[in-house]
């Protein structure tokens, strides 16, 4: 386990280093002055620019510049947004939790729906149920998410009027941001309308979360189906069968656990996919998250914001990646040992 941890941390460090290198080189790749792109000081006076340039080691060679950039990031300084003149790090701190909230709820929905259906499809392999589930899965991951979001708004918000179509919570409720994650903040607040606020926030999250969840859910269906089919062909299942266990017992006691482990292994990779979908969905549902902010920054040519947002979002995705790796290793002893001969 120690070696496993060291290897993972090593990978995490390497990746973060590469990501900072990427975002550092972005300030040179974006149009305009690299120093302005990096700091976001679009209207700085020449004297101010000179101070900045010495702070960021811009007179020295590129390695010193990168080092200065790294130390600025380590101090939590990602520059100022060119559009709003607010520090990027504080903007990210208010926006990223909303995206985390949306994507975690969507991930939970996707797994709770996708995995059981996938197991059912594997158990009913080559029967009508399997084919119907597969056809549904094909439809689900072919549907363009922006179209699905619009249809969902039309049906559930406009025609049926069940759910609100935009925003994170009704503006009537005043919630003190503590952690940034809306639900926790509501529970922490001492407002007398706490439960109304909680209900309102949940009705706001249902529609976007379901839209985000659809495509990953269908991928989970396929992953769970393959995993279950592999498990059902192993010899320990045959042994359990020979012992005289009923089919239900085999599935509940042996197959589900082993198949679930295989599904969990892929959660990290699917999460990256899910965050992409969430970015587009945020635009449609006016969700105050980092995806919408990033896309707006492109319209406004706010290069500092794009740079910081990319760094924050991809580090977050990679962090989740590593966490799921650890969860997988904790659940599956086989993954902890290095593979011999590979």
């Amino acid at each position, binding site marked *: 386990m120690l070696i496993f941890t060291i290897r993972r941390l090593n*990978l995490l460090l*390497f*990746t973060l280093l*590469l*990501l900072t290198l990427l975002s550092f080189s*972005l300030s040179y*790749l*974006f*149009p305009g002055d690299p120093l302005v792109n990096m700091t976001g000081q679009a209207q700085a006076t020449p004297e101010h620019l000179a101070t900045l340039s010495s702070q960021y080691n811009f007179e020295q060679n590129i390695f010193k510049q990168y080092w200065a950039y790294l130390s600025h990031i380590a101090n939590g300084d990602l520059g100022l947004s060119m559009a709003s003149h607010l520090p990027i790090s504080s903007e990210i701190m208010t926006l990223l939790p909303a995206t985390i909230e949306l994507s975690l709820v969507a991930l939970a929905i996707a797994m709770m729906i996708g995995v059981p259906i996938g197991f059912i499809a594997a158990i009913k392999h080559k029967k009508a149920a399997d084919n119907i589930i597969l056809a549904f899965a*094909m*439809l689900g*991951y*072919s*549907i*363009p*998410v*922006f*179209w699905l979001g*619009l*249809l969902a708004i*039309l049906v559930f918000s*406009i025609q049926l009027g069940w759910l609100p179509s935009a925003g994170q919570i009704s503006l009537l409720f005043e919630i003190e941001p503590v952690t940034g994650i809306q639900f926790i903040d509501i529970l922490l607040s001492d407002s007398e309308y706490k439960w109304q606020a909680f209900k309102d926030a949940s009705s706001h999250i249902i529609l976007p979360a379901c839209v985000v969840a659809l495509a990953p859910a269908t991928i989970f269906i396929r992953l769970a189906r393959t995993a279950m089919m592999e498990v059902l062909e192993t010899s320990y299942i045959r042994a359990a069968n020979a012992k005289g266990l009923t089919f239900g017992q085999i599935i509940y006691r042996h197959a589900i656990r082993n198949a679930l482990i295989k599904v969990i292994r892929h959660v990290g*990779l699917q999460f*990256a*996919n899910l*965050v*992409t979908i969430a*970015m*587009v969905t945020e*635009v449609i549902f006016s969700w105050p998250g980092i995806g919408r902010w*990033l*896309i707006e920054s*492109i*319209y406004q040519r706010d*290069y500092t914001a*794009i740079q910081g947002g*990319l760094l924050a*979002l*991809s580090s977050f*995705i*990679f962090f989740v*990646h590593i966490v799921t790796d650890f969860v997988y290793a904790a659940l599956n002893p086989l993954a902890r040992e290095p593979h011999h001969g590979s």
Partner: protein
Amino acid sequence: MAREKIYQEEEFPTPLLQLWHNFRQNPIIMIGFGSFLFLILLAIFAPVLTPYSSVENHLDKLLLPPAWHKDGDVSFLLGTDNLGRDVLSRLMHGASLTFGLSIIVVLVSTIIGVVIGSLSALTTGIKSSFLNHFLDVILSIPSLLLAIVIVAILGPGLENTLWAIIMVLIPQFVHVTRNAVTEEFEKDYVLASRLDGANSLRILSYSIFPNIIEKIISQATLAQSAAILDIAALGFLGLGAPIPLPEWGSMLASSIDLFYIAPWTVYLPGLAILFSVIATNLVGEGMRHALKVRKES
């Protein structure tokens, strides 16, 4: 004149031909394949087939519903949009933009990716280890996010979007080719031709490529459905095709405001995207299934 078969010759179909034999067993997948060919034809011949040009305005026929509606007009089969442009013509022109361009994007990135991938499969040691880690990092960043960043560097526009998507797709091809080539290099027939004195490049082109081409094609179909969705998504976000172009995603984006009064202007481009992605996915699915069947037999 038909030739009699004189010798009892045993025929060995090429890997690609075997794949085709397995592929055409499933009728649903053949429907998907047919739709795929239909879309290709549409993408090529759209300018000849369409009844109107994609930007021609019919100012007396604004927001006409589709022909089956009681207010519809049969000369505008799928209705018109808010500027009186024929939706059917725009959708057909859009096929050559969204679908046709996605094929070109995939072809270009396949070629670049396969070349880099097979060259990198021949390298060993620290270079290949670094490349592996680097690919892992690139592949862990979501494709749309990466495309958005590249568009931010290059500036919005259809051409820049295509470059962005090509660059996003290349690492996947490098990864697949690299794994396939290294796997194939360990087999005995490669050793045999190496003993015959063939160099690595010759082994690659004569022995290995015919055996891994179907893996690359199957990856290409995956990449194509991603490319269609990404082109449309970038168009929808206003970063891709500019407004007058009938790209399906930007058509959708420009008619959001009309959603309630003219829902067909939103339904139809979405359905077109859905149809082309499903056709591509069916072809890919059939390919993977046929590969599996061939491996097991």
